[in-house]
């Protein structure tokens, strides 16, 4: 532990808050969510979303989080059939949830490539105002021609440009949210409505990829403007987060990895000229809990079996081999044929796209042979988010999390329930009280806005911009 403390203090993390926050990530796609159990509920009924959000709020979660994928996953030229798929538009769903929740933050993953800045900023303002200052935007930059086929613009970006573009986009959104003065409201009368009580500014941006020229319509919210999340792990993505984000939705939940990631982000944040603790970190995670550790381990085997069945295991390999492998026994060794493609493709929604297929598959064959794993065992270990899992009794896992809080390795966890809509019940009923007993989890909401509940500073209004012409 001392060595972790040293790593963090060298990076400038001197005062861990000692507190963790939870978010819930209602995934709606991929193999993490079990659809085969008797308890598996609907992925689209509003009641599933209401149930998860209200349970999370009962457990004092800081945030309810929705992802986004703007093209349906495909597998060898057909829609991917084996996993949960088909989910609502994030902001529309969150606007509905705003009317049946009161404190929880509402985080929409929204892409900078397939949206217009003025429109997206206006819709996020709307969500922020409707929810009384509980909105957040998880900025993602996914950019490929395949997804672009669903949009007017098409796939127009070079991958290398994604963060230059994203940064201009986010700056424009911030200018929109900065437009109205602190006390401005729109006064509605018989002659229509007009801003009153403060000047508003026109927003003009002319850039490489888009041009925006507007008089923003909306005032600031109770939390000033939506909180910014970021998810994207490349060096460019991390620097972007260090400059722009309030919270990182990271892929680094394991302790040592989390500490290293924290140190890296803190260093980047300081280099970007912001306070060392300006960016919160909440890694993606999964919890498999029970009263005893033995039961939890048993439950884990059941969860893994239902997350990834024999067909899914073979299909998983097919993504990387780029060819059908139906003849291969899921209980036997990995296929000893080569892949049919040179590079794995992004159309499969995997994190490995662009990898050299021949190298990757050869490496996996060797790895599985060394561990004496069958296809099923290998894929369950590789794809079943083992590295994001916390498995154990309520008190064991609570102890484990308390250690993160003690050194400030993370600010909380973004939890993907593996069952909808009951997947948060044991976390809220059992884990949260254990954490509260250890003094590392809130016992009430600090306030009504997401910014207050996450302990984030209120931004200052930028001093640039010209007055609106009205």
């Amino acid at each position, binding site marked *: 532990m001392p060595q972790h403390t040293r790593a963090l203090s060298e990076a400038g993390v001197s005062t861990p808050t000692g507190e963790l926050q939870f978010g819930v990530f209602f995934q709606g796609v991929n193999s993490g969510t079990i659809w*085969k159990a008797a308890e598996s509920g609907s992925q689209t009924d*509003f009641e599933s979303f*209401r149930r998860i959000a209200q349970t999370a709020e009962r457990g004092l979660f800081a945030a309810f989080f929705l992802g986004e*994928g*703007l*093209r*349906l996953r495909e597998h060898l*030229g*057909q*829609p*991917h*059939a*084996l*996993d949960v798929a*088909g*989910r*609502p*538009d994030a*902001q*529309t*769903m969150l*606007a*509905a*949830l*705003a*009317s049946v929740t009161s404190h929880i933050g509402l985080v929409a993953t929204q892409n900078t490539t*397939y*949206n*217009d800045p003025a*429109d997206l900023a*206006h*819709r996020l*303002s*709307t*969500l922020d*105002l*409707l929810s*009384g200052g509980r909105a957040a935007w998880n900025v993602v930059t996914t950019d490929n021609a395949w997804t672009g*086929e*669903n*949009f007017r613009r*098409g796939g127009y970006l070079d991958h290398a440009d994604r963060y230059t573009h994203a940064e201009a986009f986010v700056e424009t959104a911030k200018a929109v949210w900065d437009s109205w003065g602190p006390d401005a*409201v*729109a*006064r*509605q*009368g018989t002659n*229509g*409505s*007009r*801003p009153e009580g403060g000047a508003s500014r026109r927003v003009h941006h002319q850039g490489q990829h*888009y041009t*925006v*020229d*507007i*008089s923003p*319509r*909306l005032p600031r919210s*109770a939390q000033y403007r939506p909180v910014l999340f970021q998810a994207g792990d490349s060096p460019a993505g991390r620097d972007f987060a260090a400059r722009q984000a309030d919270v990182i939705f990271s892929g680094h939940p394991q302790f040592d990895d989390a500490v290293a990631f924290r140190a890296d982000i803190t260093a980047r944040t300081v280099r970007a000229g912001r306070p060392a603790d300006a960016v919160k970190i909440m890694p993606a995670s999964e919890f498999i809990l029970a009263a005893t550790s033995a039961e939890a381990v048993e439950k884990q085997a059941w969860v893994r079996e239902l997350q990834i069945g024999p*067909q899914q295991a073979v299909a998983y390999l097919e993504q990387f081999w780029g060819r059908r492998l139906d003849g291969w026994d899921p209980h036997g060794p990995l296929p000893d044929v080569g892949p049919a493609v040179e590079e794995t493709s992004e159309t499969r929604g995997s994190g490995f796209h662009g990898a050299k297929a021949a190298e990757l598959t050869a490496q996996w064959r060797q790895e599985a042979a060394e561990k004496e794993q069958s296809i099923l065992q290998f894929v369950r270990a590789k794809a079943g988010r083992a590295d994001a899992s916390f498995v154990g009794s309520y008190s064991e896992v609570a102890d484990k999390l308390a250690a993160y809080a003690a050194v400030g390795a993370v600010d909380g966890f973004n939890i993907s329930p593996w069952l909808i809509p009951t997947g948060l019940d044991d976390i809220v009923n059992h884990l949260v009280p254990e954490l509260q007993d250890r003094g590392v989890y809130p016992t009430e909401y600090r306030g009504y806005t997401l910014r207050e509940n996450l302990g984030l500073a209120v931004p200052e209004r930028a001093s640039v911009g010209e007055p609106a012409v009205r």
Partner: protein
Amino acid sequence: MSTTDGFSSEARRAGFLAIELDGAGWDGTGVRGDDVFASLAAAVLAVETAGFHVATFADSPLPGRANALQRAAYAGPITRTIVLVPEVDTVYTEPFHVSIQLATLDYVSGGRAGWIATAAESSEAAAAVGRAAVSGAALPLEAAASIEVSRRLWDSWEDDAVIRDVSTGRYIDADKLHYADYRTPTGISPAYSVKGPSIIPRPLQGQLPVLVPASLVGEGQVPADAVDAVLVTAPTPELLAAEIADVRDRLGQSVALVAELDVVLDARGQPATERAVGTGGDRARYVGSAGGLTAFLGQLLVEADGVRLHPASLVVELDELARLVLPELRRSGALRPMVQDGTFRDLLGLPRPTSRYTNSHIAAAAEN
């Protein structure tokens, strides 16, 4: 999509009432005033309680106006019977996003969603997204294109596409998902295409009812069979019935017609004539007593399938409408009964359509 043989004459005798909620309640947006409800929720619940069948949400480019579709979504979970219909532009929006957002609205409202598809003629709206302003004949073409994209995407998951078949390990039957493969016709610039399938299963109603202003509908514009209802305007109340008859002649029986009416009533001891400011806009305006309005609506609903009211002040007019107008119209049988847990299609008398792609195979589409 009016694939049915229209409404039975019986259904037509009773009509529905819609009311516009633009700026109606404090929704956090900074719209404050003496004649504004304390909250958007209060405004929506008040019009539902008053017995309106439909609430519409304009997307005015005015200061203080929040996104219409999200306001409608916010109202979804807190209401039970009222239909929620936002206005969404087709010219400066991404048709794919619009389709997914509207499908989601249908889910969060339990099938009580519709869409007023508009075509913004606005250089402000064009500048906001850095596009050249679209005008003239291209406007209805943009509307037609976006509606067609939504309709195809809503059908792109057949109803029984989610099979959850444990024995074969399939959550989805991939043969029941379909590419939309939409390409704009000539006349739309820049041209675009949308691949599909949708990223959300088929909406609860299968297809959301689509409402379009009459000025955009017709030959070489938005085809009548692409819309479920048309919004009809006339310069004065006296001309509305004749205009309805004209549009009916032009578009046929399969489209519902909704008359647009501004309303200023005698209220709170003040005569309507004093409360009516200016000459009104291009919509017919009724200025007078609640009793006179009741009689006028009773007649209008013989010709029109529905009437949408634009009250001078929601707070003030709603009092009179709820107390004096709606109860009387209901008693006289001029209003369709409310359907508990009904859909917008139910209200319009439209059956739930099967997907246009039923029995076609995605693999065939994927071949080329």
